[in-house]
């Protein structure tokens, strides 16, 4: 590289490496600590980062297997963590599919068609997606209460309600997909339409196959956002076996019932898959996030 380098560069590079490594150690401390705690026996145990006597007590409880200690005492799992994880995944998969399907078709219309009120709708969607749903929880609660009186699978305390409610957050995804559609040359579709294809066929057979990458990104983004959604699920879901992970996990750390060790194992068990998915897809996710400018 033709760049002019001052002499002090070598020391500055060294200092940067040391600084960043120290910073990373500090940042990772909580995460490493939780992994370590999940292997300690008991809920109040203290010790070094590498437990001297590793115990699988918390892990067995997190996996839903009653744990028998050396003295023969049997501890039952405090909470159905795997069921919560399953609930979360179920809700996230169904709502991501719905979000993907609905926002793709809308984005197509916004990117390719001309109609009255297009700019207005697009701009208002951007504005409305900034309003946090926490503030309208009273209204959402009343809404689902009313619907639930007549359509039982959409009422309070159902997964249907949480799935449907997540459809309110589609604006961000519509914008992301629309941006991608805009970048695809429309002459291919026009050629197909000249050959006699309907608009729907041009969309289904020409544009969609070209957009698989962005559809993956939106699916993953919607999936992660739904998994992490807390306020709405905390109001809509009541029964312990219906909770999602985000709502259920805090029950480990109540003052009266402080299950620090059990929490650590459950947190690693349920957080690890989500973290790995995120790291694996980070390249695409980052692009999508910076386009939308928000994190859920």
């Amino acid at each position, binding site marked *: 590289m033709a760049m002019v380098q*001052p002499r002090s560069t070598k020391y500055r590079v060294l200092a940067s490496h040391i600084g960043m490594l120290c910073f990373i150690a500090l940042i990772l401390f909580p995460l490493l*600590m939780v992994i370590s705690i999940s292997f300690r026996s008991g809920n109040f145990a203290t010790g070094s980062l590498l437990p001297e006597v590793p115990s699988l007590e918390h892990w067995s409880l997190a996996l839903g297997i009653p744990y028998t200690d050396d003295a023969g005492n049997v501890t039952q799992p405090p909470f159905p963590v795997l069921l919560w994880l399953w609930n979360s995944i179920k809700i996230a998969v169904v709502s991501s599919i719905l979000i993907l399907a609905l926002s793709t078709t809308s984005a197509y219309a916004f990117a390719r*068609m001309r109609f009255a009120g297009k700019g207005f709708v697009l701009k208002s969607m951007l504005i409305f997606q900034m*309003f946090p749903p*926490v*503030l309208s929880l009273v209204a959402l609660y009343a809404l689902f209460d*009313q619907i639930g009186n007549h359509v039982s699978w959409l009422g309070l305390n159902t997964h249907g309600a949480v799935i449907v409610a997540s459809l309110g957050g589609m*604006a961000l995804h519509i914008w992301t997909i629309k941006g991608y559609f805009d970048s695809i040359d429309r002459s291919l579709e026009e050629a197909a339409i000249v050959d006699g294809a309907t608009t729907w066929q041009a969309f289904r057979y020409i544009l969609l196959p070209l957009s698989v990458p962005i559809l993956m990104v939106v699916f993953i983004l919607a999936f992660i956002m739904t998994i992490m959604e807390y306020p709405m699920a905390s109001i809509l879901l009541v029964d312990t076996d219906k909770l999602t992970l985000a709502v259920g996990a805090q029950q480990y750390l109540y003052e009266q019932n*402080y299950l620090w060790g059990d929490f650590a194992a459950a947190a690693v068990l349920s957080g690890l898959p989500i973290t790995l998915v995120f790291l694996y897809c*980070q390249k695409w996710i980052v692009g999508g996030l910076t386009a939308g400018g928000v994190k859920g």
Partner: protein
Amino acid sequence: MLTDTLTYPRAENRAFMTRSILKWSALAITVSMALYLIFALYAQQAFVFAMLFLVLTASAVFVFVNKRMYAHRYIFPAIAGMTLFVIFPLMYTVGIGFTNYSASNLLSFERVQNNLMGRTFQSESVRYGYSLYDTDKGYVIYLEGKHQNLMSPPFSLEGDEVQPVPVLPAQQTPSGEPLQIRDIIKHRSALNELKLSTEDGRELSMASLRDFAAIQSLYAVSENDTLTNNRTGVTYFPNHDEGFYESADGDRLVPGWTVSAGWDNYTKVITDPTISGPFLQIFIWTLVFAVCTVIFTLILGLLLANLLQWDQIRGKGFYRTMLILPYAVPAFISILVFKGLFNQNFGEINLVLENLFGIRPDWFSDPALARTMILIVNTWLGYPYMMLLSMGLLQSIPKDLYEASAMDGAGPINNLMNITFPLIIKPLAPLLIASFAFNFNNFVLIALLTGGAPDILGASTPAGTTDLLVSYTYRIAFQDSGQNFGLAAAIATVIFLVVGALSLINLKLSKIKV
């Protein structure tokens, strides 16, 4: 496939027929289901909700039937979803802000009146002593009154009959011995459920172990909706300003009903010192929190992004992955992890601090420390996002600018202040505002980490020193006994205005083209 349809017009015609039949029947089914829901809601007097679904269904039919609305068919589901779950709740919330909707004023006037009219009491004047006989055919009850004696046919005490047992005037006691009081006690719960009906239409129920008394409605309603208490004779007038039945002495009957409160909730926020004090404190802390978070995460993120962009640094992939780890771990898990680590007695952070410096800070009960903790945790959570944003923006700065400045002998600080910062601040500004708005409403962090604790003293609503406006609103609406939805909605409306202004500014700054 396309050529098929062109060369076989008949097949196309048939396919078209099937499709249009399918289309119309699907439409008919959806519409009839929607109409059922609308009528059911209307019958239950949920007019607002009935109206909402009526508008949605009508526009759906209009869009899907009208050929000219073809483009709108594609966007309709998304718009309907946003209307239903974002815009409608928003307007409904603003509406609630102008009412006294709360745990004590939850119902409509009609339902409150029905509720009060359903209340009963046992008459003092119409009372009968009773005895119970166990005969071959079942139990027989014999009532001794002042004017007449009554007797029932044999009945069973085991079954859970809801039907009242009729009693008729009797001249003599039934044959056999009445049950002893201890045997009656055994049947107490069944007797409690038992209702007897007399010839003149009165209902009797057990008043004590030895008495049956007539059941009377507690309230009688007059023409102008006033209620009279049949036991005390006090008259209650409906007060449609307050939403309660009130007597002349100011006695209130609970429950009350929902009435419009005008600007009451807003004036309360300004004038009532037990609300305005905490509100102002929380508002300032919310601003401080959001500004500090943006500044801290930006500084940290920009610094790390600069280091990662520097071509002298090796192992960028490793650093990058490690540095975005806090972003990759689900927030609800890492916040709870911090809640445990900061715990005063068992937390690992206090353990380390005690070993190193011999101190054990009260992270959750001291306001200043609790706020510090929140800022530390939120910086940890938020810097990777800023780092990723800055990395993207730094890449767009032409490299020769730095080369030129190096020729002139400029150091890193000069580079940052004179090249990097001026060039990235413009595209960064809308993202910073979005981040500010997000943190202004960072409900999950507060709800999971401190829950707002420690509490503000002297507040009449649940309010904590670490509460943000959103979590404050949430607690007023859903926590403790208060459930003051009206007040919560009024504060939510204030936040809506702030957020709305921010997003408008954002839209102007980012110059979005549609």
